[in-house]
């Protein structure tokens, strides 16, 4: 078809790309609840679902009539590529009458589900202003429309009604009790008739967002006023329990205790246990997975043995952290400042990811807790110093006030309390490095080539750090430029290779015992692939090195520990959140339009 060719030719047009971006942005804003993987939104007319008298052009947005237009039998229509998803809640599109054609006989049938057209179709006629509903006889509805007019059609999937607009003015309800799965459709009958569609490519003439806001307010009001009745006391206990278990789950020990005291409730888990979990989590998040494994084995003997999958995941992560130069097994070889090693971007508290955006929430326990406290500030400068680089420091960290602070409070607080100790740490370590560096420098020629590489690296690091200190803030860590495999230490690299072999061995052992595991294989492959690149941080699998990746494994380990203690592996708060989210998605699938305005995000502040 010629029209299709024209459409694809335009694809390279920058203006078109810009329009496409604008369209995506507008659709996302208008219909945030729509999952386009499941139910794509209409974006253009369908070249497949149209009469032959219909011609399409301009990216399948312009429709022109090319039939005879002698009588009603010559009427032709075209529908959009997809039906209107129920999750839109309220759907809207507009059509501009570019040319009315030779006579004044035309129609607009914006809704028709199947190319059968006559059945279950709803329309608004331009020549007489009548509306018609699944039949040829119309009802007086609105004014007539002609060249230059912009006609809009709004489908309210909450109460299953529809109204049209003319030049931005609502004409009032045209139909009620609409069936689901309607398609935007346009029908023409006059030679020379041309109409342009706007599915969101351009701003609408009618203020649909204002109309939506009314319905959002209505539905929010309904939710807010939902009667709780006599269960009020019970309700409070449930809420308190939710908060308490959430704090305990994430190991916010002191907060949980304070909360329990204030609300006169009991905590199921004892303090030591909470603190232990907290310590292990912190180790994982700091990238010191080896130590975390050790601590787990020591504190929860048998746990990892009973969870070989988890152990494998942890080991894999440990390998990655070795590449990263963060794990203590490689760290002990390094005398470098921790600065470039601890590249965790932001505070060590879990990244803020709101529940509703995570579709796997309650099905996969391994997922990160979706609701973290507060926002993680991107100030690397202060927070990354929270992990004193000396490898032996780990055991004492839990007793240091700063680390307690970190685990208890949300990230914003922790950064507030950190700078002091952080800065002093930084100065201390860099001071000692200065000395080492100075030594190297005066020594001049190194004894072996590998040492020279080492020296060189150090020097490079040193300069960067000196800058950091003198500037106070400035470029905190130019990690990309200075990162090297295992921190650039050869002994460490050797240790890593050896660990890799052990990991390979573990995989083979697991295969023998439990049969092949595709996930493991993939995990291992990805981890080993890192070694294939000169700069693993900037390679196709470099994503693994992102400290954010620690969160999943961290919460998986936490859940496993809790489970082993006969505690819920997920806090009820997250469970409730997940259920609510799932429920809203279910509403979309069963075509309950109000889901669009009952989104869980709207209630998370």
């Amino acid at each position, binding site marked *: 078809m010629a029209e299709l060719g024209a459409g694809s030719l335009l694809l390279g047009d920058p203006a078109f790309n810009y329009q496409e971006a604008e369209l995506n942005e507008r659709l996302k804003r208008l219909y945030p609840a729509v999952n386009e993987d499941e139910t794509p939104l209409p974006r253009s007319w369908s070249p497949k679902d149209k009469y032959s008298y219909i011609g399409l052009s301009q990216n399948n947005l312009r429709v022109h009539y090319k039939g005879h237009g002698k009588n009603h039998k010559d009427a032709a229509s075209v529908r959009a590529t997809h039906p209107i998803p129920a999750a839109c809640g309220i759907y809207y599109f507009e059509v501009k009458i570019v040319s009315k054609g030779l006579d004044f006989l035309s129609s607009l049938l914006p809704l028709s589900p199947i190319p059968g057209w006559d059945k279950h179709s709803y329309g608004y006629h331009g020549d007489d202003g009548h509306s018609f509903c699944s039949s040829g006889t119309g009802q007086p509805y*609105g*004014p007539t429309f002609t060249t230059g007019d912009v006609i809009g059609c709004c489908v309210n999937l909450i109460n299953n009604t529809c*109204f049209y607009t*003319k030049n*931005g*003015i*609502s*004409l*009032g*309800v045209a139909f009620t009790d609409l069936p689901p799965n309607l398609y935007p459709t346009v029908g023409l009958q006059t030679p020379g008739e041309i109409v342009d569609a706007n599915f969101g490519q351009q701003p609408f003439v009618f*203020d649909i967002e*204002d*109309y939506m*806001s*009314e319905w*959002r*307010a209505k539905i929010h009001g309904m939710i807010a006023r939902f009667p709780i009745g006599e269960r009020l006391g019970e309700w409070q206990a449930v809420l308190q329990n939710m908060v308490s278990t959430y704090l305990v789950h994430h190991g916010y020990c002191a907060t949980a205790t304070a909360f329990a005291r204030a609300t006169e409730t009991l905590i199921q888990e004892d303090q030591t246990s909470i603190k232990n979990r907290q310590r292990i989590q912190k180790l994982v998040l700091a990238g010191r997975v080896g130590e975390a494994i050790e601590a787990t084995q020591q504190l929860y003997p048998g746990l990892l043995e009973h969870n070989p999958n988890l152990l494998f995941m942890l080991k894999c992560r440990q390998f990655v952290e070795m590449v990263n130069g963060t794990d203590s097994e490689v760290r002990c070889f390094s005398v470098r400042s921790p600065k470039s090693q601890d590249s965790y971007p932001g505070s060590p508290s879990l990244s803020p990811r709101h529940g509703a955006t995570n579709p796997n929430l309650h099905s996969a326990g391994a997922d990160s807790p979706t609701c973290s406290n507060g926002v993680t500030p991107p100030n690397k400068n202060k927070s990354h110093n929270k992990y004193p680089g000396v490898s032996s420091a780990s055991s004492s960290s839990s007793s240091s006030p700063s680390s307690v602070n970190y685990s208890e409070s949300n990230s914003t607080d922790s950064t507030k309390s950190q700078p002091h100790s952080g800065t002093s740490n930084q100065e201390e370590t860099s001071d000692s490095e200065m000395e080492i560096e100075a030594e190297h420098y005066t020594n001049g020629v190194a004894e072996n080539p590998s040492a020279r590489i080492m020296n060189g690296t150090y020097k490079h690091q040193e300069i960067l750090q000196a800058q950091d200190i003198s500037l106070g803030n400035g470029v905190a860590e130019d990690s990309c430029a200075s990162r090297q495999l295992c921190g650039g230490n050869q002994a460490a690299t050797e240790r890593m290779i050896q660990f890799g072999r052990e990991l390979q061995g573990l995989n083979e052992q697991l295969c023998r015992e439990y049969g092949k595991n595709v996930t493991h294989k993939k995990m291992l492959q990805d981890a080993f692939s890192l070694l294939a690149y000169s700069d693993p941080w900037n390679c196709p699998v470099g994503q693994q090195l992102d400290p954010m990746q620690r969160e999943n494994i961290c919460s998986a380990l936490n859940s496993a520990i809790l489970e082993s203690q006969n505690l819920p592996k997920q806090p009820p708060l997250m469970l409730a959140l997940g259920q609510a989210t799932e429920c809203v998605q279910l509403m979309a699938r069963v075509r309950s339009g109000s889901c669009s305005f009952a989104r869980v995000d709207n209630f998370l502040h």
Partner: protein
Amino acid sequence: AYCLLTSHIEVTATSRHYVDRLFDPDPQKVLQGVIDMKNAVIGNNKQKANLIVLGAVPRLLYLLQQGSSSSELRAECAVVLGSLAMGTENNIKSLVDCHIIPALLQGRCMLTVCVTPCQDPTVIPHLMSLLSRSQRTQEYITQIFSHCCKTPEHQTVLFNHGAIQNIAPLLISPSYKVRMQALKCFSVLAYENTQVSMTLVNVLVDEELLSQVFVRMMQRDQPIDMQLTAAKCLTYMCRAGAIRTDDSCIVLKTLPCLVRMCSKERLLEERVEGAETLAYLMEPDVELQRIASVTDHLVAMLADYFKYPSSVSAITDIKRLDHDLKHAHELRQAAFKLYASLGSNDEDIRKKITETENMMDRIVSGLSESSVKVRLAAVRCLHSLSRSVQQLRTSFHDHAVWKPLMKLLQNAPDEVLVMASSTLCNLLLEFSPSKEPILESGVIELLCSLTQSDSPALRVNGIWALMNMAFQADQKVKGEIVRALGTEQLFRLLSDPDSNVLMKTLGLLRNLLSTRPHIDQVMSSHGKQIMQAVTLILEGEHSIEVKEQTLCILANIADGNTAKELIMTNDDILQKIKYYMAHSNVKLQLAATFCISNLIWNEEDGSQERQDKLRELGFVDILHKLTQASDPNLCDRAKTAMQQYLA
């Protein structure tokens, strides 16, 4: 109920005496009692406390709110209450406990205090200065302003005291109540006030134009009260000419918002206010009327306004019935007003309105409702629809609307009379089938009496109706009009200070002087006076339209058989006709030429002599010149006249 303050207050006999006097059946004594009380409490906190304990406050409030109290008494009561409020904290508390604030606001006693600045010019600046105190003072003071501001003078006083600059920042206050009161204040200030409205459009609040702030307040997720009041502000600004009627904030925001306020989902009060405001917004603008007529089925939506109290409410819920009954009149009059506004210009809209279920029946019954407000609104609606030729011919006749209309005219306040008589003018148009039955009902006397009214609008309508009645009427009707009106009154109207009255009177004369036998008959009995009046008008300082109409009368006279001679023998008039033939205004030239043309028309007796005489007077030369005129009509007319000479 109010609380006792402290137990050890010494209640003296004199204090009790003051309070007792407030209950005296003689209002004069009550007034004196209040005045004495005023003098007794000034500066005496103990006395104030005593009076409060003895129950003076509720009684004072009662007197204040009583419609039957004289304004003097009410003012004195307000002063005493104000004085009591100047006492101790406890005193103020007990006053507030008696719900004094709403009473004061309702009773408008603050009005006497704060809008008579000559008495105390410090009050308003003082209140303005209190605005910065707290959210509470902001809320109350703006509320006081909105309640007190009742006249254009009040608006000006507040405007001159910087109300706009002081209150505008409150529109973005964190407190909803403050925002709301500030908004209400603006709606009161802007109402029919060009000065305020023109200032408002340029005001910036936090770098945003005020109109945009109002638009945001009209968003659909805002509380209804706020949407409605913001729409009022924009409506008033638009009507005052500060915002164009085609501005998108009017067309796409204010108008749809007001239409929404008319919907069934809104409270009855909101629907009344919404409809009234919308009617006001679009009254002068046909484009807005067209848009509103297709917005959200407004015309059909309004039909629902007539369904209160509904049959359901009567059976199920007494409270609701009471509520419905209270609002029923208001709803009906609001709907009539809105229909009137909708149908004031566009024929299609009028058709749509009359086709609404039982519309004409509703208007007919509305015309005879007990509530003046409803009657007025119904007749306005009828008037608006009566501008349609088609409706006059069909629905108006079918429903015999002239009957209740005539009844309405018998005994009604002036504002109703103006509308009703104006409607009658349209019903008396020549093509209206109602004309005949109205004539038979003896309307002439009534219309003649209207021409003697003090109100220019009623005089115009009276004479206008007579004019329409006389158009192509038979001799009997014309004679009756002249007889009933009386020549004296007719000539008095010809010197009426209102040019509209003059125009319509001339129109009546012209209609009376049509068809030859009628012309001769009227001129034979009243020729002298008519010629005198015509001369006077042609000599006087009048508009082109008036002079044109007068020349047309002359032309009609010139068409009579015997009447012609009244002109031919009057050289003064002939000179005037000559003068107007050479006038710079084509319309006057045309009318004057027409007159000459009638005088020299060949087929009539004595045409030769008249032609000769006029030739002598130099008319032929003028006609000759006019055949070269650039205006084609004038040129044709002159040529036709010239042909009379050639034949």
